[in-house]
């Protein structure tokens, strides 16, 4: 009797948890097909995911030719409103949807907060088996899972970023961001605006996109004002908001009057920057709304350009094997200024020239490793 009660309670708990976790993750923004929104919830039935894969996949590839919408599923490590990496992809998908003419033409679903790679892998497999035209694994940590899953679904196209590695698979696109380019421009601006000649950087883990941005930023500062000291601290986490905030405090105590940082935990740091009235440079998404008084500019990722290219390729029968990069030249990276913060005209001109220089190759980013 006791056992059954205990089992029952555990079951109720698990049900609650699945309910709570599942709901936000599967909410499609637009009126998506109800079947599609259920996808991640079905991760617990592996038998179901294998079987329909073969039968449904061919149907999926024929879909674009008919009046069916182009269907995209995306798996993201953090939330769609993280004001950083995941939001940049979510916003891009919304823009693609708008360009293509709404949910009837372009339909997408997403699973957010997939910080557990195994869960993400299960979601990717589910989406693939449900015949989505394109399944996006938005996080470099999902690479090895995708390498295993993609060959099982030769008719489905996958995209993986940020990376340059397609694993030689004909149905994987790789995409990355030249984060160093916008980082460099932010660095040029920061070097011009610092008065204390000390600039603080708050990084997550010293790898990938974050490292690229920070190294580019440092290069921009050094090229503009070699005597400015750039203090970099990595906190070892993408989510520890409290430590990010304390790092900002530390940077400010150490004399920094301009800060920047990358990844979703920086929202903690931006608050501290605002309290101390020091300037902030954002990246990945436009972070002005968090602190309108102190955010100078943000490098914003616009993935929609390369997404449209992928969609065209898929519709033309090419499911992968190519690598894409967003950068300043192709409009995938845009420096968005805070309209409420006045950048001196000569500094703004210098930044604009830097952008032009990076595009035409006259400015080289020396990360001198």
């Amino acid at each position, binding site marked *: 009797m006791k056992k059954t009660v205990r089992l029952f*309670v555990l079951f109720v708990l698990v049900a*609650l948890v699945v309910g709570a976790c599942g709901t936000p993750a599967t909410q499609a923004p637009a009126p998506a097909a109800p079947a599609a929104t259920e996808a991640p919830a079905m991760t617990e039935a592996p038998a179901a995911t294998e079987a329909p894969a073969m039968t449904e996949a061919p149907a999926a590839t024929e879909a674009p030719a008919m009046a069916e919408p182009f269907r995209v599923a995306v798996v993201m490590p953090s*939330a769609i409103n993280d004001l950083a990496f995941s939001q940049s992809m979510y916003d891009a998908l919304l823009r693609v949807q708008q360009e293509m003419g709404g949910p009837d033409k372009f339909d997408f679903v997403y699973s957010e907060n997939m910080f557990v790679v195994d869960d993400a892998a299960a979601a990717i497999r589910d989406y693939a088996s449900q015949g989505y035209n394109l399944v996006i694994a938005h996080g470099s940590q999902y690479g090895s899972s995708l390498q295993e899953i993609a060959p099982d679904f030769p008719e489905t196209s996958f995209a993986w970023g940020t990376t340059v590695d397609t694993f030689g698979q004909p149905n994987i696109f790789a995409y990355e961001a030249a984060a160093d380019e916008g980082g460099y421009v932010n660095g040029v601006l920061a070097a011009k605006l610092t008065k204390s000649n000390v600039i603080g950087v708050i990084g997550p883990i010293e790898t990938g996109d974050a490292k690229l941005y920070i190294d580019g930023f440092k290069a921009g500062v050094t090229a503009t004002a070699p005597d400015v000291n750039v203090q970099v601290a990595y906190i070892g986490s993408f989510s520890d908001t409290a430590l990010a905030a304390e790092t900002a405090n530390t940077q400010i105590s150490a004399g920094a009057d301009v800060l920047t940082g990358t990844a979703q935990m920086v929202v903690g740091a931006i*608050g501290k920057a605002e309290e101390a009235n020091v300037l902030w440079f954002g990246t990945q998404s436009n972070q002005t709304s968090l602190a309108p008084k102190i955010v100078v500019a943000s490098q914003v990722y616009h993935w929609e350009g390369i997404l449209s290219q992928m969609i065209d390729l898929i519709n033309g029968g090419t499911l992968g094997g190519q690598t894409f990069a967003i950068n300043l030249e192709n409009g995938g990276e845009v420096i968005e200024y805070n309209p409420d913060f006045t950048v001196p005209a000569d500094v703004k001109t210098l930044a604009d020239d830097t952008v032009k220089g990076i595009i035409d190759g006259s400015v080289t980013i020396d990360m001198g490793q």
Partner: protein
Amino acid sequence: MISSLFSVTVLVGILASGIRLATPYLYAAIGETFGQRSGVLNLGVEGQMLLGAFAAFYIVFVTGNLALAVLVAMIVGALMGLAMAFVTVNLQAQQGISGIGFYLFGVGLSDLLFQKMLGTVETVRGFPKISIPFLSNIPGLGEIFFNHNLLVYGAYLLVPIAWFVLNKTTLGLKIHAVGENPEAADSLGVSVAGVRYFTIVLGGTLSGVAGASLSIGLLNVFQQNMTSGLGFIAVALVYFGGWRPWGVLGGALLFSMVNSLQLWIQVLGIPIPSDIAVMMPYVLTILVLVASVSRVRGPSALTKPFERED
């Protein structure tokens, strides 16, 4: 460059940020100490913190009332504690597993509420810094000890109060008895279930405040999963501190100070790889734990459900 670590600014900076960083750990770990002293391991602290953090943030976001926000965070934490107590005391469920269940529940629910009720990262005006008159003007010490927000002071006041309750009151004695030998306590007329309900609900209440100390004290933002493992470190600190409030304080301060030390090491450009630097607090904590493990013994009845034999 190493020598720059020993300047007054840096030392004051390390100590002051260590004091701030330790705040959420203190609330959560002191609450957990009560639970574990009475024989209940609650691994759901992180989930309780997240819900407390969200509740407090949301109240401030809507009403701006800080006192009400802390109260609501306490109530939310207490309700989570109540549910945990029901599952572990009445239903005698395995404590570790049900704790993890409550953790996941807290993560999921706080995220859901955040999505539905806020939708994006917002900021609020949380507890302001209170500079204690006169004391905060002492050079160095003032900045380290007397220039924090109310929730930081509260965390440190909690330590002697918890020590007093656990060691100098009848209630503390009952908690101890229930955690060491519930059968004996029961035969002497102590309500094992009652004591455990009290400690788990108290633990939940304090975890709620721990969350509030982040979302409306130290950070003034709420983001999904913002506690980022803090609640689990708090559970570890209870073991580290040998189930004593002062030990927990020592552990929390050690961990936080080393964490702020490694931040300063990176900021000052001392050439240590960042991966090594961020490991420092964890490695040191493990070393101290290993060195001290034979010294202390946990409550005998920890994780063991109590079933009355009639």
